[in-house]
């Protein structure tokens, strides 16, 4: 199809490069250098979408990021992306776009009935309507609202592309590469400073792209920047947020302009930029005027139409009316006339101006003192109604297919505001500009109200130079700005033309001037409240074209100046950012790093079924071919430990070396029990409390030398315990001479447990007498194992005779194999975390389910461990009445009365129908087959021997259980001491 609105020459499109694309399935052609919006206009496509609430027909309103209307679904299948702005989507060959938010066709949308219902569905409609009956909330109202809400559809499938993070540092970050930004980057770059220039467009130049005669200046500026080795140019990069201490976030659309990202190329890159100084050269956004029908396809910002004509060589219409309140907007009329559009009339509320006179001299019809009072047409503009300013009456109608609107320009102050700078009202520009900087930033050019290319470039150069000097660089040669006339951007104050029909202040969110007044009448008069009540200035455009207009309407209703009403607070993101970019590379296997012990490969070869323990992968159990199910594996492994011998990887336990002359004193203070009395070569079980008196962690600690201890923590608390120790050393006892080293990764450890453990360990280690007399329970010694240095601990978690053999991690596989070989005659089996859990529940050892941050030592039956003398963390507050109350739930053992009936962790323990506690851990027993568990039960000790109910309402189960001692298995510890 021909591009009948394309001009024969001019602009920044390459007419020799034809790009095919589809919109709603229709095939079109555009050129390299086009945006999707430019290419649609070139093909005469005006209707591109339906509005959010009323489903009104909408066209292309702007030529940039401020676009409220032209939101389309881009691409299809797994790459479908909703709500992309056609005005910034770079055209590529094969692009497929679809219009959004209509039922039925785009041209005839059944939901447009909402427009007829409009008097009843104004602001607050949802808040007021969908309240009764409550039973309808989930079943009726929510599905209905969800169906009606939103615009485009996400693909609902995994994104096939990848995204990456990137980190940058610079002396000067320049945001925006219009005349001000280019000049700023050049001035800063010339000093030798490290400069990043980020521009959201794919071309540098901003408004320079609309000025063919300034092309040499633009080209030279870009060439100069490219030649500076310390200048990084980032096109297609939107700086979306200004955070603390000079940190800014940006998204680079690396491959969005390609059909698919090339191999090894991310679709987008999420930059975190740390800048010593920031120059904001973000330009300004033209603002709309609220008048009835100001949303009809064919109504367009004046500057946008000029951009389509000059930059893209596209005529946005055949016959245009300009409705403007300031002289600078007249440039659009001249540019369009040059492009061949007939200027039917210029409507201006002012009495007279220099531009009006120039326009008349050029032969244009100028209606001074008049305003647009309405628009005529259906899915496309056919005419414009005009009237005398202030009269409200309709005077005239002008046939036109394009209505150019300009109510003035709003400096893009978003980033300055986010940096903490206040906003000041500029009486001449009728807009907010940044006030004094709080962070090390400065605005330059149109974003602080300095309009005109020459003036903006001069302002930018000064800002860039000042920024570089502030970053510690010596000033360099000046950048000469282009010499251009400065058009007058000071508008006549006209925010709204009142009349019959909808006058939108937020076209994207279908918010009218009447909605704003309604919000005020109903008490939502603060700008932040009015915003939330009406949805004004939300959405992808965040009110860039009409936000201030809505504030002005509110100001009028409040009878206060706009400056007093202000704007809603700006927050990131200035423009939409995809979730993919935010997630970056931290998806799939990179969501969190996977931590593997040195024995990972060994477990894999043994058929380990993995479970996650924090970042760790640990074998839950080893699935043997003969095992009927997981329980069969777990019971087989546990039985091997109880009857013969088993080996378990316990490398994940945290290990900390505490060393120094004050090491013993330090441990006495951080543990509830005493370590200064521990002999060298012996281990002791230790209990660590938090300062509030609750149990924090447990583990065994070994005295390796008078001033050196080897502390172990639980797997889960290894990091927190290290921080806890470091904090108290730094804050409470900095006088103690002690050092802390994490050696978790240095040592791999395996527990060899079972009646035959001694035989197996003896066959593996050398240089150690393992007899009970020489190496009793809780003894520790260095030795050799399978020819490598090792340390053997006689400690037990399972309740059996057990040894923990620790070796430098690189030898773990060697030693494991030696243990397995030595264990063959004894029927050794590797056992996983599930069997370990089974064994400790049988034995009554507490673990994370019991040490859950809510239990005291006394609750766990460990109260006698608390030393009576000397300070330690948690000592004082553990004595509070609430924590020493004898009625607190205490640790008990539990046994299902019917061995076949399963009990579940989390179940309530009912006595006489009332909950008196809960089950913390359950397992099947191998010692006395059936379901057993541990739990916390009020008056637990007194209830030993009684039968109560384990209730799990979620499963609809009530299971009789018998309360037993938690230490039912080998209560005298004969086995561990055997």
């Amino acid at each position, binding site marked *: 199809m021909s591009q009948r609105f394309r001009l024969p020459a001019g602009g920044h499109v390459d007419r020799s490069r034809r790009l095919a694309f589809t919109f709603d399935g229709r095939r079109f052609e555009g050129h390299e250098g086009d945006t999707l919006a430019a290419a649609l206009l070139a093909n005469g496509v005006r209707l591109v979408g339906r509005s959010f609430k009323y489903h009104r027909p909408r066209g292309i309103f702007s030529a940039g990021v401020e676009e409220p209307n032209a939101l389309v679904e881009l691409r299809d299948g797994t790459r479908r992306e909703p709500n992309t702005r056609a005005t910034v989507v770079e055209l590529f060959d094969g692009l497929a776009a679809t219009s959004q938010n209509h039922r039925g066709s785009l041209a005839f949308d059944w939901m447009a009935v909402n427009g007829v219902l409009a008097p009843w569905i104004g602001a607050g409609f949802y808040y007021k309507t969908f309240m009764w009956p409550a039973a309808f909330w989930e079943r009726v109202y929510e599905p209905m609202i969800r169906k009606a809400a939103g615009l485009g559809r996400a693909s609902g499938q995994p994104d096939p592309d990848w995204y990456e993070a990137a980190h940058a540092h610079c002396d000067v970050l320049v945001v925006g590469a219009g005349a001000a930004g280019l000049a700023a980057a050049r001035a800063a770059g010339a000093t030798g400073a490290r400069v990043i220039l980020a521009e959201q467009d794919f071309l540098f130049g901003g408004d320079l792209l609309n000025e063919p005669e300034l092309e040499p200046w633009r080209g030279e500026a870009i060439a100069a920047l490219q030649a500076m080795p310390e200048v990084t140019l980032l096109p297609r990069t939107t700086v979306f947020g200004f955070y603390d*201490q000079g*940190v800014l976030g940006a998204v680079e659309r690396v491959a969005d302009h390609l059909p698919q990202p090339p191999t090894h190329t991310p679709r987008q890159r999420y930059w975190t930029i740390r800048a010593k100084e920031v120059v904001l050269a973000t330009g300004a956004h033209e603002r709309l005027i609220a008048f009835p029908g100001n949303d009809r396809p064919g109504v367009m910002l004046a500057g946008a139409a000029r951009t389509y004509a000059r930059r893209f060589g596209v005529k946005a219409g055949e016959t245009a009316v300009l409705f403007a309140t300031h002289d600078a907007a007249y440039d659009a009329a001249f540019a369009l006339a040059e492009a061949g559009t007939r200027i039917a009339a210029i409507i201006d509320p002012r009495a007279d101006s220099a531009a009006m006179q120039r326009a008349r001299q050029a032969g244009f019809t100028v209606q001074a003192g008049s305003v647009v009072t309405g628009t005529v047409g259906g899915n496309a503009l056919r005419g414009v109604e005009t009237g005398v300013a202030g009269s409200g009456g309709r005077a005239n109608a002008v046939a036109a297919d394009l209505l150019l609107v300009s109510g003035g320009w709003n400096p893009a102050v978003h980033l300055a505001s986010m940096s*903490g700078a206040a906003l000041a009202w500029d009486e001449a520009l009728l807009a907010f500009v940044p006030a004094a900087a709080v962070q090390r930033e400065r605005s330059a050019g149109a974003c602080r109200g300095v309009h005109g290319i020459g003036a903006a470039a001069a302002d930018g150069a000064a800002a860039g130079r000042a920024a570089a000097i502030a970053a510690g660089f010596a000033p360099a040669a000046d950048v000469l700005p282009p010499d251009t006339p400065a058009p007058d951007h000071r508008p006549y104050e006209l925010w709204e033309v009142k009349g019959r029909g909808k006058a939108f202040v937020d076209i994207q969110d279908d918010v009218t001037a009447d909605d704003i007044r309604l919000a005020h009448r109903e008490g939502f008069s603060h700008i932040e409240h009015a915003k939330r009540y009406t949805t004004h200035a939300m959405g992808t455009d965040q009110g860039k074209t009409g936000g201030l207009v809505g504030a002005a309407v509110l100001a009028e209703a409040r009878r206060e100046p706009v400056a007093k009403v202000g704007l809603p607070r700006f927050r990131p993101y200035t423009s939409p950012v995809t979730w993919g970019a935010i997630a970056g590379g931290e998806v799939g296997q990179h969501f969190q790093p996977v931590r593997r012990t040195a024995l990972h490969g060994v477990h894999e070869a043994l058929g380990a079924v993995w479970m996650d323990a924090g970042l760790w992968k640990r074998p839950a159990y080893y699935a043997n071919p003969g095992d009927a199910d997981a329980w069969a594996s777990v019971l087989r492994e546990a039985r091997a430990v109880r009857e013969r011998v088993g080996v378990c990887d316990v490398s994940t336990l945290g290990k900390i070396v505490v060393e120094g002359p004050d090491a013993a004193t330090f441990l006495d203070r951080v543990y509830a029990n005493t370590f200064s009395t521990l002999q060298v070569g012996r281990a002791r079980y230790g209990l660590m409390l938090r300062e509030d008196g609750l149990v924090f962690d447990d583990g065994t600690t070994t005295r390796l030398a008078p001033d050196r201890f080897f502390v172990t923590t639980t797997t889960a608390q290894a990091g927190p315990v290290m*921080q806890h120790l470091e904090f108290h050393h730094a*804050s409470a006892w900095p006088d103690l001479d002690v050092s802390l080293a994490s050696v978790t990764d240095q040592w791999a450890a395996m527990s060899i447990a079972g009646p035959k453990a001694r035989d197996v360990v003896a066959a593996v280690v050398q240089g150690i007498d393992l007899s009970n007399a020489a190496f009793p329970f809780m003894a520790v010694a260095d030795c050799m194992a399978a020819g490598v240095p090792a340390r053997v601990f006689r400690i037990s978690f399972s309740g059996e005779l057990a040894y923990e053999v620790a070796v430098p991690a690189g030898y773990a596989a060697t030693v494991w194999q030696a243990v397995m070989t030595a264990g063959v005659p004894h029927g050794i089996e590797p056992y996983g975390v599930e069997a370990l859990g089974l064994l400790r529940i049988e034995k009554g050892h507490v673990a994370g389910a019991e040490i859950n941050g809510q239990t005291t030592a006394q609750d766990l039956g460990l109260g006698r461990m608390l030393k009576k003398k000397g*300070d330690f963390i948690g000592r*004082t507050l553990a004595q509070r009445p609430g924590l020493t109350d004898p009625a607190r739930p205490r640790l008990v053992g539990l046994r299902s009365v019917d061995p076949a009936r399963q009990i579940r962790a989390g179940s309530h323990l009912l006595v006489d129908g009332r909950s008196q506690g809960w089950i913390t851990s359950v397992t099947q027993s191998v010692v006395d087959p059936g379901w057993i568990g541990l739990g916390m039960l009020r008056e637990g000790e007194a209830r030993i021997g009684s039968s109560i109910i384990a209730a799990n309402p979620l499963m609809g189960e009530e299971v009789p259980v018998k309360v037993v001692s938690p230490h039912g298995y080998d209560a005298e510890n004969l086995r561990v001491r055997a």
Partner: protein
Amino acid sequence: MLRITCPHCGARDELEFSYRGDATVTRPGPDADAGAFHDYLYLRRNPRGWQVEWWQHNGGCRAFLKVLRHTVTHEVRAVAAATETLEVPGA
């Protein structure tokens, strides 16, 4: 996102640090009563303005640092080692 200048490592991202709250409270001595420990553990001024805070540079040198930070503007005015004292300006 904050940037905190560690006295040992230089300016680093907030992500490298972990926050540990008001650094002006000190752990009571061994003879203190439950009331003193209660105040130490639970009572905070929670000022709107300047506060001296504990931050651990656990992603870097692991040092516990005292940071003078404004709770509204997020300005960081001073960072010092654990053993040093930072004064709250104009409090």
